[in-house]
């Protein structure tokens, strides 16, 4: 029953431009049925840190759709991670799981946060962690605790410490922003008076590729998040767009019109070593690597209407992957490689569909009308997408089984679009 000590490193200083002005607000719109009731007791002493650790842990777990935080009466004396647990007492409060903890201020001005997790049903402790952190790391610490709880209770890795990128348009101003997965702490990587589309995270989470129209035509940039430096990866004659990273982070697949039409090319991340990998008279675009790096899935209208195809990642013959409906675009492979998410047009409505690559079964998982740009969470459990609600561009998150939905909109107005969920940061 030993604590693991974790020294939290300083949050990496993010970006060049101005700090958080905007934040995404989150609204949960669909309930998951099988939610685990969990008692998250406010940590002793947690008022010393703002925001409160347990409020973030609870919000994270509820946002996953798999947990329901119990409303608890004040309990005296307040239990901490050092208390012995009366399981039947928690059972009578209808909890399946319990989190208790404490926050203490150290002499050097930093804080210690400790917690323990208990399985109330099986009456077993599931472990705990003690963190040492500075005040501005309270949020990050809470997300780590939520990740721990999520992983112990579901077996899947939590994504609460990950980040999302997206574009906000306000009037004629476009901003590429990066925020925590819960929408907090948004920072601007690029501000422009021309559109920005297709942000793509490098596998190590340190860079974003994107398409900017600041030169009156689409150009692919690679932007380093740590120092805000960016370089042009592709600005050939014609249009340059749809960047996608190979899983080893060394290659970018892009769509270029430099040889006519729109065809797929591969290049090194610095823009060198350009080689063409499709040769069709059609539009071939939206390349995406499979997680094992062996395949590139892409959108092509070589058969008459846009459908999804795949080919070996070094190029070669392509096989068609989608067969239902006349408009299937924006392929995204789940992190475990087993599912393909894409956008399908259904009686004029653009919706998110999932194709199980193991048994070819398809399922439409949204019922909205103007869905775009689906993006898997790195644990494959949620899909972030852009949609339009009440004439406004917002982000929506839906569980991969379609049962649970949330809406994320720009708190200070504007349209949000082009979401990309960032990777796990090791």
């Amino acid at each position, binding site marked *: 029953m030993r604590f693991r000590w974790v020294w939290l490193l300083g949050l990496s200083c993010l970006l060049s431009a101005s700090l958080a002005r905007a934040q995404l607000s989150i609204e949960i719109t669909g309930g998951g049925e099988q939610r685990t009731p969990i008692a998250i007791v406010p940590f002793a002493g947690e008022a010393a840190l703002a925001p409160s650790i347990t409020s973030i842990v609870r919000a994270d777990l509820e946002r996953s759709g798999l947990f329901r935080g119990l409303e608890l009466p004040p309990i005296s004396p307040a239990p901490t991670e050092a208390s012995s647990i009366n399981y039947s007492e928690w059972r009578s409060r209808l909890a399946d799981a319990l989190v208790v903890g404490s926050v203490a201020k150290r002499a050097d001005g930093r804080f210690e946060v400790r917690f323990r997790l208990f399985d109330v049903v099986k009456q077993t402790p599931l472990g705990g962690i003690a963190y040492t952190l500075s005040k501005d790391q309270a949020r990050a610490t809470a997300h780590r605790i939520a990740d721990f709880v999520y992983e112990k209770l579901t077996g899947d890795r939590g994504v609460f410490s990950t980040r999302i990128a997206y574009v906000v348009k306000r009037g004629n101003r476009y901003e590429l922003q990066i925020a925590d997965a819960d929408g907090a702490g948004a920072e601007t990587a690029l501000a422009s008076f021309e559109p920005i589309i297709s942000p793509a995270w490098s596998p190590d989470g340190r860079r974003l590729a994107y*398409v900017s129209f600041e030169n*009156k*035509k689409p150009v692919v940039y690679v932007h380093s998040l740590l120092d805000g430096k960016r370089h042009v990866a592709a600005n050939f004659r014609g*249009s340059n767009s749809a960047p996608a990273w190979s899983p080893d982070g060394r290659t970018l697949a892009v769509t270029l019109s430099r040889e006519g039409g*729109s065809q797929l090319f591969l290049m090194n991340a610095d823009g060198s070593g350009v080689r063409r990998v499709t040769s069709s008279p059609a*539009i071939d675009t*939206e390349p995406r690597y499979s997680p094992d790096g062996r395949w590139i899935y892409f*959108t092509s*209208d070589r058969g008459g209407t846009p459908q999804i195809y795949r080919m070996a990642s070094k190029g070669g013959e392509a096989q068609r992957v989608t067969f239902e409906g006349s408009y299937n675009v924006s392929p995204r492979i789940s992190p475990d490689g087993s599912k393909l998410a894409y956008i399908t047009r259904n009686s004029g409505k653009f919706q998110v569909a999932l194709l199980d690559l193991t048994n070819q079964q398809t399922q439409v998982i949204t019922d909205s009308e103007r869905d*775009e740009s689906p993006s898997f969470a790195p644990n494959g459990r949620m899909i972030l997408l852009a949609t339009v609600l009440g004439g406004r561009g917002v982000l929506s998150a839906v569980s991969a089984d379609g049962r649970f939905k949330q809406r994320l909109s720009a708190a200070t107005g504007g349209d949000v679009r082009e979401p990309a969920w960032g990777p796990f940061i090791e």
Partner: protein
Amino acid sequence: MRANLTSLFTAVAAAAMIAGCAATSEGDTPAPVTGPGGGSKPGAVTTSPVKPVDVTGTAGSPEADPRVKQGPLAQRSIYYDLDKFDVKDEYRGMVESHAKYLRDNPPARMLIQGNTDERGSREYNVGLGQRRADGVKRMLVLLGARDNQIESVSLGEEKPQAEGSNEQAWSKNRRSDMLYSGEF
């Protein structure tokens, strides 16, 4: 097919050259330039006016200047039906005027931006816009413009001319725009 195009090109180019010559020399009287063998005493300094002849096209007639707001070259946009990228007959004359200008002004440069309405995938729409811009470029080159004078690019659905989610707005956004140097 190729022979037909070549002879068409030749005929159009020939017509253009004749017309071009007429345009640039309109209003100019070639000025006599006196030199050593030109009828003056050796050693004498003659100062005859030299009237400039400008073949860059910018000092030509107003019809030939794309920057003139009401001129024939002021028409810059071609509109399309849904899912289409061919240049409709009604725009043919417009494209011919621009082709002629490009032919007559080799240093001139054009950017064609293809656009789509807002429906569907943004990246697929970049591809569709490209198809539209390519179609216009192809026609211009067939009519005598040079390939290296024109760059065709796509703005996809990102720069609509009209806001709104209805066919009235969408029909204005399915278009190609022709821009000349200084405008991009």
